[in-house]
């Protein structure tokens, strides 16, 4: 048979080398990206005896959840041996008011800046934006002095205020961009109907804000949960968030480190943002696209 097929119908497909290398590259890189997560999980279920053998990539031979229990309730930082649970609850106590307050103030600011021409609002916005790029270190010391002089230092209120202040640029930008894209006719129509500042916000603008509220919540929950430097500086002894506690547990160990406990504590700390990430799916991507300023 030497007859060549008459070209007809779809082009014959073959898995080309190009196609294979695309998948090859993606799979190899994906494995590299997964290794740390794998190591973290595997280690957290191993006994210290098994860890001392040094097979960091191996799945635990003698599976144990002991390290998780220890990490949660009895891992030590210096002399205190209470695990990360205190930090977890501290983080929750910081997280909830900070997220609510920063989104409330951010949306209010974005709304006022978009629809009203208050003198100086534009300058305010520009300074806020620039502020988002400046490392916290530039502000921290004077802020600590200010906070101690008004009694906010080392307090839950203090750390919440700090989160709101440093979350303000991103939140304002987010809401201002979103509201700026809404048709101005909506606002004008409500105004012609006689609605005031708050009435328009409540009945017209907020009902249309759910997408941006979701994005803002995702950004703030992960951002505030993951914060270290602000919690370290402002929360004080009694409100230390989980990241600070975790770092203390791992990095202030005397003698041999309990790597399995460390990794269990690390996973527990990463759990909240990871859960937000996996469950929010495309919203998370939308968030980083909208708020890529965070850096």
């Amino acid at each position, binding site marked *: 048979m030497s007859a060549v097929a008459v070209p007809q119908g779809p082009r014959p497909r073959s898995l080309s080398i190009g196609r294979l290398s*695309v*998948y090859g590259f*993606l799979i190899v*890189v994906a494995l590299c*990206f*997964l290794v*740390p*997560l794998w190591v*973290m999980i595997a280690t957290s279920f191993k006994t210290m005896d098994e860890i001392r053998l*040094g097979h*960091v*990539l191996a799945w635990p031979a003698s599976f144990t959840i002991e390290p998780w229990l220890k990490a949660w309730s009895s891992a030590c930082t210096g002399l205190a041996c209470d695990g990360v649970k205190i930090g977890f609850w501290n983080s929750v106590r910081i997280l909830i008011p900070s997220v609510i307050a920063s989104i409330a*103030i951010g949306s*209010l*600011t974005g*709304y*006022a800046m978009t629809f009203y021409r*208050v003198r100086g*609002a534009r300058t*305010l916005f520009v*300074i*806020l934006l*620039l*502020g988002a*790029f400046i*490392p916290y*270190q*530039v*502000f921290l*010391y*004077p*802020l600590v*002095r*200010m906070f101690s002089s008004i009694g906010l230092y080392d307090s839950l209120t203090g750390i919440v205020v700090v989160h*709101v202040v440093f979350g*303000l640029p991103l939140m304002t930008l987010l809401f201002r961009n979103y509201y700026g894209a809404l048709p101005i006719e909506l606002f004008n129509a409500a105004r012609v109907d006689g609605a005031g*500042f*708050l009435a328009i916000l409540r009945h017209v603008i907020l009902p249309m804000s759910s997408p941006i509220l979701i994005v803002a919540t995702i950004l703030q929950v992960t951002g505030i949960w*993951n*914060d*270290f*430097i602000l919690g370290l*500086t402002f929360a004080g002894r009694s409100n230390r968030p989980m*990241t600070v506690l*975790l*770092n203390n547990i*791992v990095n202030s160990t005397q003698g041999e480190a309990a790597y399995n406990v*460390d990794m269990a504590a*690390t996973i527990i*700390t*990463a759990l909240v*943002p*990871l859960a937000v990430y*996996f469950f929010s799916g495309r919203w*998370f*991507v939308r968030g*980083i*696209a909208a708020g*890529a300023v965070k*850096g």
Partner: protein
Amino acid sequence: MVDVAATSAPQAWLRARSRLLSQLPAAIALLPAAAAVVFVYIGALAWTVRLSFSSSKMLPVFDFVGLNQYQRLFGTERFVVSTWHILVFGILYIAGSLIIGFLLAVFIDQRVRLEGVFRTIFLYPYAMSFIVTGLVWQWFLNPELGLQKTVRDLGFPSFSFDWIVDQDKVVFTLVIAAIWQSAGLVMAILLAGLRGVDAELWKATRIDAIPTWRVYVSIILPILTPMLATVSILLAVAVAKLYDLVVAMTKGGPGLSSEVPAKFIMDNFFERSNVGLGAAAATILLISVASILAPWIYAEHIRPQRVRK
């Protein structure tokens, strides 16, 4: 003439008053933001700069010692090596994140199956705290029990990967961990850019018989340039802020070999009671960030407005 002036003045006043009243709620709503700007973004910043010209040690004092603190700063080995580290880190980290992120975006853009799975895997590190990243990599790169030991046990006894305890190479381990965390961010942003490219443009390149790689290099990359610039700025700002990762992963060690400016500032403010010196370092950091930002702000925001006019 007199009449006109007499009637128009109260009218103007009335108009101004009604305008003021209608803007009043908005002005009140902006008060928290205004307070944040005045007290923090301007006030605290100015205060820090002011302190850098004082002799403050443990507590702030408001004397004036000129540039003494700056002189001292550049004579301090810890700060000089910190600056050097951050430069090396910054260049490698930004270049690495951009290259890997761009490649990932391009490869994912080839209509691959399981695209969502790949994207999720590449981006998940970005969801985590730098503290978590630092601790994981610290453990994974542990020379006695981590990667090095495992590879040696696999039958490569001479394999050596002890960078995290090597004074000359520890910065590179920070680079690896940081790229691991950020490459997915670059990928996500660039992928959005790639998806925004007009489908007809791709058709045109096929009619013109341009090879795919050439399309990416000669046509797509130039389209993505503004996006790449923005991402680079984000990464550069992250470099200046680099603190958590170092604290968790290396604590600045071994010795001073992974110290960075942001950590130098924190240590001097809150542990070493060298407020003046810390303030000087913070001011230098501020100037560096401003000098990175200025050309970008000009190119992205000021120049386009002029062109439009």
